[in-house]
């Protein structure tokens, strides 16, 4: 890892102010992606701004018809929150499928969303549930937030503070995991709210998380895995790599969508 200047602000305001002044700065949340990337010298920020000592960035709260999760809330806490398990069990379930226990003890929801790894789990939940990403500057709808591979609508120096998830009638998440990294080769999050069904796919898209409109249409007609019999996803725009080719990923999307629908509650 190349050397950097380390900053540990104790408020979001201070973190933003450091970021405004420092050249080539990066925010550090749980570090589960950024630190390995720095170790491999694929990232070498001159300034590292550690957000871990900012007290009010973690926590889970049910507010009306939404669940609001602080950006620095660890996957472990999301997976084990009784309130969340009651309100959006699929989201708690998803957090419990990320990485392994030691990774879940460090990794955070805000870090995952800021990084927008095309195989990460949270982007699928945010897009399918219609989450709002709340930053120190504004609110961004999930629909406008994910803009490409590791790309988001976040501007330089903008910090995610909270994520608000509307509570669905039913939701489920299922993923076909890479057995070594536990990242999604294909992950599908299905959510039903009133007559609105949204299905978001992670791991498969060549430009990151996307909504599977064909599957949404089938599930809107009837919210049952039987509706997905014979639904074939196109392989265009899907990723081919050493783990799976685009055709196989296309096939997996329907399979994972069926399982996620069966699990949905």
């Amino acid at each position: 890892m190349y050397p950097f200047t380390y900053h540990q602000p104790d408020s979001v305001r201070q973190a933003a102010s450091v970021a405004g002044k420092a050249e080539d700065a990066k925010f550090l949340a749980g570090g589960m992606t950024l630190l390995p990337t720095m170790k491999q010298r694929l990232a070498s920020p001159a300034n590292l701004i550690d957000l871990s000592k900012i007290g009010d960035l973690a926590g889970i709260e049910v507010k009306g018809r939404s669940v609001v999760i602080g950006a620095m809330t660890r996957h472990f806490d999301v997976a084990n929150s009784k309130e969340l398990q009651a309100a959006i069990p699929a989201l708690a379930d998803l957090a419990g499928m990320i990485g392994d226990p030691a990774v879940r003890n460090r990794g955070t929801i805000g870090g995952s969303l800021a990084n927008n790894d095309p195989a990460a789990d949270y982007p699928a939940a945010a897009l399918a549930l219609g989450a709002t990403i709340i930053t120190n500057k504004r609110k961004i709808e999930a629909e406008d937030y994910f803009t490409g591979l590791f790309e988001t609508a976040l501007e330089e120096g903008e910090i995610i503070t909270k994520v608000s998830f509307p509570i669905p009638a039913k939701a489920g998440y299922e993923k076909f995991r890479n057995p070594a990294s536990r990242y999604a080769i294909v992950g599908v999050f299905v959510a039903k709210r009133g007559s609105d069904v949204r299905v978001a796919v992670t791991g498969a898209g060549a430009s990151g998380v996307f909504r599977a409109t064909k599957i949404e249409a089938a599930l809107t007609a009837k919210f049952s895995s039987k509706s997905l019999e014979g639904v074939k996803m196109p392989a265009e725009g899907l990723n081919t790599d050493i783990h799976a080719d685009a055709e196989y990923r296309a096939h997996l999307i329907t399979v994972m969508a069926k399982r996620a629908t069966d699990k949905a509650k």
Partner: protein
Amino acid sequence: MPVVSMTVNGKAVSADVDPRTLLVHYLRENLRLTGTHVGCDTSQCGACVVMVNGASIKSCTALAVGLQGADVTTIEGLAKDGKLHPMQEAFRENHGLQCGFCTPGMIMSAVDIVNRNGSKIDEKTIREELEGNICRCTGYHNIVKAIAAGAEAMGG
């Protein structure tokens, strides 16, 4: 260079380190606690697992400077008064190791698994919970047996 102070295995420690020092190197090189191993160095294998404020983490993927004031337990901190921790004893009894390289991380994760799941844990849970620990000798069978036995012993 910043002075990083924490409590490691019940003792107050402190060292001058470069900010890029990882917790595992702080432990091994500054404190000479070499029981915590660096295996894959990519946060997958779990040879470097230690407890920080009661939660298991991969010490190869944490900056020491970010853990100012933390309470850290390493494999060296488990045995008390010259007596092995019940989980260590269970690994010895059940031959839960071959080359032994992954063992410190396995044992730290095992203690964490019992802390979170209680002392009555089935084989499936143990195997799932061990996802983040890799044994290149593939000695998982005895490791899982050792953890089940160690869990019982920890329970009393």
